[in-house]
């Protein structure tokens, strides 16, 4: 393999480390405020969260339906159809940002700014808030309090997301990303043809799109579009923004539980899984040398790295079309999503998703050392195990059952553009992306039809709450347990052995669940290509 991508990967991880460690320090201060008077137990927290989401979805749905009648609509777009508005509202509220519409053609500036951009902040903040609640649970000594949802949302938005977004947006504007209320500009291209250059308040949305691991682009082409991602520098910034909070949360966690090694262990587990995925993708793309669907400005390596990052985290922004990756290459982003978006993952959701796997790993490892399994002094009983099971079960079930239904529905199979096993990959990718709240699209699937809008909307909704609610329940249960002190008989959860075991559990659960489906899609496709032997 070329040494350049490896160098890029190492450089990227080093830069990330330089940013994430101070970020963790800052985040930790927000997690543990001086005042705890307004805190409540997990049920109160969950209730606030559900109300918050219900209001958010209804408001966004109404806005998208009525955008044609509202101001700030220079392009004169009309309201979205009911199923598309349903899908889009859920998509942005659940931090998925699956886009069954084309941004420049069908969303007004008002809806972009008041609807989508606001949800970009709020949905990211919700994930972080849930992660906060879970982290706090480990420090409580039995009172069951995990925080105040609205305070958390306010603090996360005002003290983390907004300041960083402003700085990032200014940097993007500097590199040439438009920030304007003007309608599209009509110009004459180099070859003499008329061309419509779309504009809009892009930079402000671009920054939070990355920072909040939302991924919903202003334009249809997302970060492959020169107005969203003009230069290699903006590309690097975008990649760093995606991992900033997920990586920062691991370090913040170590500080919150007063054992920095625990945070480092989580970061390392994620970094190992991420590096394996990136190296594999470099390898497959290096062998296949496919340029169709990739931006020549970014080339093979930056496209591959971006694809790995955006699907490791539940961002879903793309700077190249994943459908155009080689068959094995396309399996990497797919599998990264199917692992449950825990390799750094979404803002907050990556953290609590990984903790679910940690609990699973601790459960098995704990039994193997002859102790009732415990993590950071909190015993894992039947109740926690039940919640872990629900949270880990829900996304695979949504993906597999959703895909199985789709292949039986003509409306769904008719939307598949490519022949052979690649077509199944497209459907599998769509459901994996939706249920895991990633939102990236494989391309090649005309997803704007009532079947996909509704099915994927449901997947996004249940994929989000099917994890968040059990996580909050676990947090509540941990918070009402005393923390057992450590001894030589306690399973160490920071050593290399446990990190390795955790990585294996994540891979094993994902692989065992999806291997048969993958065998029928990317694997069958790859093995039918003449050059597949080179792929191995």
């Amino acid at each position, binding site marked *: 393999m070329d040494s350049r991508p490896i160098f890029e990967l190492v450089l990227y991880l080093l830069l990330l480390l330089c940013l994430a460690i101070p970020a963790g320090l800052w985040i930790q201060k927000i997690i543990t405020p001086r005042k705890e008077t307004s805190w409540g137990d997990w049920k109160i927290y969950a209730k606030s969260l559900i109300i918050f989401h219900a209001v958010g979805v209804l408001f966004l749905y109404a806005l998208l339906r009525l955008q044609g009648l509202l101001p700030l609509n220079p392009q004169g777009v009309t309201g979205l159809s009911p199923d598309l508005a349903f899908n889009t509202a859920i998509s942005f509220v659940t931090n998925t940002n699956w886009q069954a519409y084309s941004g420049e053609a069908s969303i007004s500036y008002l809806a972009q700014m008041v609807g989508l951009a606001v949800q970009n902040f709020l949905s990211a903040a919700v994930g972080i808030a849930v992660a906060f609640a879970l982290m706090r649970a480990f420090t409580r000594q039995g009172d069951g309090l995990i925080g105040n949802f609205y305070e958390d949302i306010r603090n996360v938005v005002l003290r983390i997301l907004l300041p960083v977004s402003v700085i990032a947006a200014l940097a993007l504007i500097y590199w040439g990303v438009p920030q304007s209320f003007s309608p599209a500009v009509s110009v004459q291209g180099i070859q003499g043809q008329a061309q419509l250059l779309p504009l809009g308040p892009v930079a402000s949305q671009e920054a939070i799109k990355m920072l909040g691991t939302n991924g919903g682009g202003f334009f249809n082409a997302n970060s492959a579009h020169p107005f969203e991602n003009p230069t290699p520098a903006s590309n690097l910034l975008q990649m760093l923004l995606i991992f900033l909070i997920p990586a920062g949360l691991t370090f913040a966690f170590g500080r919150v539980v007063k054992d920095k090694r625990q945070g480092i262990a989580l970061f390392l587990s994620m970094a190992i899984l991420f590096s394996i995925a990136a190296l594999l993708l470099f390898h497959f793309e290096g062998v296949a040398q496919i340029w169709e669907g990739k931006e020549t400005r970014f080339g093979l390596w930056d496209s591959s790295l971006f694809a790995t990052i955006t699907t490791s985290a539940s961002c879903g922004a793309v700077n190249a079309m994943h459908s155009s990756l080689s068959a094995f290459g396309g399996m990497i982003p797919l599998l990264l999503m199917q692992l449950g978006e825990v390799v750094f993952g979404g803002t907050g959701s990556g953290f609590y998703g990984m903790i679910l796997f940690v609990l699973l790993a601790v459960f098995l490892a704990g039994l193997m*050392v002859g102790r*009732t399994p415990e993590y950071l002094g909190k015993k894992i*009983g039947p109740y926690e*195990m039940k919640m872990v099971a629900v949270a880990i079960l829900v996304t695979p079930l949504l993906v597999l059952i959703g895909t199985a239904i789709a292949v039986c529905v003509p409306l769904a199979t008719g939307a598949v553009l490519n022949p052979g096993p690649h077509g199944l990959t497209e459907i599998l990718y769509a459901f994996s992306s939706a249920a895991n709240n990633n939102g990236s699209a494989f391309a090649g699937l005309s997803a704007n039809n009532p079947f996909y809008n509704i099915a994927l909307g449901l997947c996004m909704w249940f994929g989000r709450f099917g994890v968040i609610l059990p996580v909050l329940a676990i947090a509540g249960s941990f918070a009402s347990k005393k923390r057992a002190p450590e001894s030589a008989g306690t399973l160490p959860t920071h050593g290399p052995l446990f990190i390795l075991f955790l990585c294996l559990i994540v891979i094993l659960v994902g692989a065992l669940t999806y291997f048969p489906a993958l065998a029928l899609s990317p694997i*069958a496709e790859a093995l039918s290509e003449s050059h597949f032997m080179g792929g191995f």
Partner: protein
Amino acid sequence: MRHPRKIFGGFDRKLMREAAILSLKKLNPQRQWRNPVMFVVWIGSLFCTVQAVQGWIQSSGTYFLPFLSLWLWATVFFANFAESLAEGRGQAQAAALRATRSGTRAKKVEALEYSKKWTLVNAEQLRKDDLVLVEAGDVIPTDGEAVAGVATIDESAITGESAPVIRESGGDRSAVTGGTRVLSDWLVIQVVANPGETFLDRMIGMVEGANRKKTPNEVALSILLSSLTIIFLVVTATLFPLSTFSAERIGVTSTVPIAFLVALLVCLIPTTIGALLSCIGIAGMGRLLEARVIATSGRAVEAAGDVDVLLLDKTGTITYGNRFASNFIPMPGVTRKHLAEVSFKASLADDTPEGRSILALVRKELPTIFLRNEHLCKSIPFSANTRMSGMDVPQSEMEESMQLRKGSVSAIKVWCENQGASIPPELESEAAQIASKGSTPLAVSENGDVLGLIELKDVVKEGIQKRFQELRRMGIRTIMITGDNPRTAAAIAAEAGVDDYMAEATPEAKLARIREEQGKGHLVAMTGDGTNDAPALAQADVALAMNSGTQAAKEAGNMVDLDSDPTKLIEIVTIGKQLLMTRGSLTTFSVANDVSKYFAILPAAFVGIFPQLQVLNVMRLSSPESAILSAVVFNALIIIALVPLAIRGVSFRAESAATLLRRNILLYGVGGFVTPFLGIKIIDMAFAAWGGF
């Protein structure tokens, strides 16, 4: 009476045959339903059998389907067999115990004295609080408490110990157990348990598995296994539409046979651990019984594995049971003879071994000693609260009235000060000197004047230091509990190598210490035998009562050691840990197995749709049918192969958690990954050689 461990080879034919019959009975779906993993296999077996029968009726069948059905049924049968075998062993152990009791007749009496006016009733008719007379040669009909008399009793039926023990009313040796035999004298016992609630009944219930409730860890593991089953159920169920769709898109008409998918499902769901789970639990109780400990719940056994603080009584556990009086040290102006005489009188009511050793020492020095006007003297018995014993002698023509006391130095000091007497300055220094030798000083007082000290020698058991080191490696902190003064306690604690000690411990202090440790999140284990231990035993997470102890202690504890050996706690911790380790290791093994099964079954299942997937057939299995059967056969055989491990438990060494984890991941994780690749290949080669498929 101790049996060498018998695993498998040691099982007699009868046990195996009974287990086999029971396993067939367990095929009843109503019973199978209780184990969701095996129930899925059961449904799969039924499905394949129906298909096989249809195939033969239409005479289009091959050997494949009948063979597949056969091995799927075998999987279910093996799982039932494992459970039945573990139950059978327990029942055999229980039956021996039960035999001692059958047909016992009891002499029911009304008064607390020896009389011939008893009525003969069956042991089953006895109820709580009934009084029963037992005489030499009688079998004690049920658990009880001696309320009158003294007797020697042969408890070998329960404890295996052939040396007779003395049981008497009052004190800490009053509990008698049903099934034991009176050798001499008589006792009136008060029945403490209704039929079906005695220790023997509970023990039988536990080992037979009848009363076995799932422990929290077992429940948590079952949840994990059920969710794995659900995932794989969906994985295989969705595979049918997915593969059909794939076939249509490339214009192939072939579909995946449903029997293949059933085989895949059975191979993927965690049948290995699902089949052995209850066997492991029952065998754990059995192992405990082999160690001659009865637990009243499985929960207690598991908690033992989690214990990280061990409260051990010094006496009998760390030091040899009894301390012996070895010397008298009189204060200035007191004769040794006078000190010995007063010590004698003050110790008459002290029934502890120490008290008796003082009497023995005095008798050796003053063989002619006797007590005047014994009937007028008022004995002050030893109590753990006052930590004193003594005697009040009334005024008589020969003597002044006297208050004689003997007890721990600090207790006597307080007592003397309350009497308004001064304490001789030599007392402290002499006591300190005795304590610094690791011996225990007892002070003796007459009417508030301190006469002197008695030195009690204490000997630390050999090898105990090494055990404490082991415990420390396992992350368990040992705290020595003693009524001794701090200096004595420190000397012995240092010699024995415990982590901490509690000196001058009263029952209240013990209870407070347990609460304090639990408040810090520790799980505490302790042993005890006296009635005054009962509150602390009830508070501790794991409480091992001595069979020789009082009924109150046994009721308060959640385990009873039939050998009355407090160091047994260490063995119980090991058994508890082994129980969890066996479950965890076999679960890891079971899940790691799945990788190879994908590589065996998927290329075979999809061969008609995507022939290129043959690349995944890394084992180069000879044919699709053979590949699938090999995986199923391996899956069934591994259950039976692991039964001895499930019954014996994975090996445990006193090592840190990190070391244990490394070893078990290598052995059961990596082993579980590699073994089936080899196993399936070998079975496939056998099929290929036979040529059936």
